[in-house]
């Protein structure tokens, strides 16, 4: 989780397509490690995406979201240079925020 999130925000017309890859184990609490012991539940519960400071995506996740989650959100009315901010908080209280700018369509 020390790894930054990969945030790609690209404009298609006036819609920003924001795709995020997060480094997180998203443990279900059902997996056993090499010693045969259960790896405890460890997953992202709260995840928000803001565009220029306004929340556009306010998500509650379960441990059934895949390991190293990939998710996307699309926002209308965006412009190149708009600031995208993604924050997650997990069930252990660990958190992380990363930012990126919306890129013009190429």
């Amino acid at each position, binding site marked *: 989780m020390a790894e930054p999130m990969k945030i790609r925000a690209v404009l298609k017309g006036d*819609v920003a397509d924001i*795709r995020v890859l997060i480094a997180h184990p998203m443990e*279900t609490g*059902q*997996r*056993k490690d090499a010693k045969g012991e259960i790896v405890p539940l460890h997953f992202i*519960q*709260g*995840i*928000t995406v803001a*565009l220029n*400071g*306004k*929340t*556009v*995506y*306010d*998500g*509650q*996740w*379960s*441990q*059934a*979201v*895949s*390991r190293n*989650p*990939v*998710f*996307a*959100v*699309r*926002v*209308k*009315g*965006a412009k190149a240079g708009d600031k995208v901010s993604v*924050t*997650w*908080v*997990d*069930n252990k209280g660990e*958190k992380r925020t990363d930012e990126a700018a919306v890129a013009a369509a190429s």
Partner: protein
Amino acid sequence: MKKTRRSFLQLAGGMCAIVALGAAGLLRTAAARAATWNKAGFDAKAFADAMKSIGAAGATESKDIVITAPDIAENGAVVPVEVTSRIPGTESISIVAEKNPFPLVATVDLANGSEPYTYVRIKMGQTSDVYAVVKAGGKVFTAKKEIKITVGGCG
């Protein structure tokens, strides 16, 4: 923090929807969101309980919710699910995998220009119907799609 939020709401002026959404707490932080996490819903093991927890008991089936996902996913640990809603006023989209040990997978509230769209990769334990639940204008709608799983992905 309070002063900034108040000024922001004043700037929003006559945009009643945004003020209402702000008052309803949609401008909360991820930390606050984790604190209001739908524990009862996410802990539900029965599909009916999970659906009830998100207000989907008795929801209307809708053809205006499009679920794009593989018919067959070889790896149940990474199943891409995309939901597009054509229902006006879509405020939230939830994903529920009926046969998962804990069926409720995610609930996403959308605001401030967010398109009625969501994409996320999920784990599925076995072949199952995956439901998309959309809340719009005070009503709840659902659609479903069966996804066949070759190798389960929960454990």
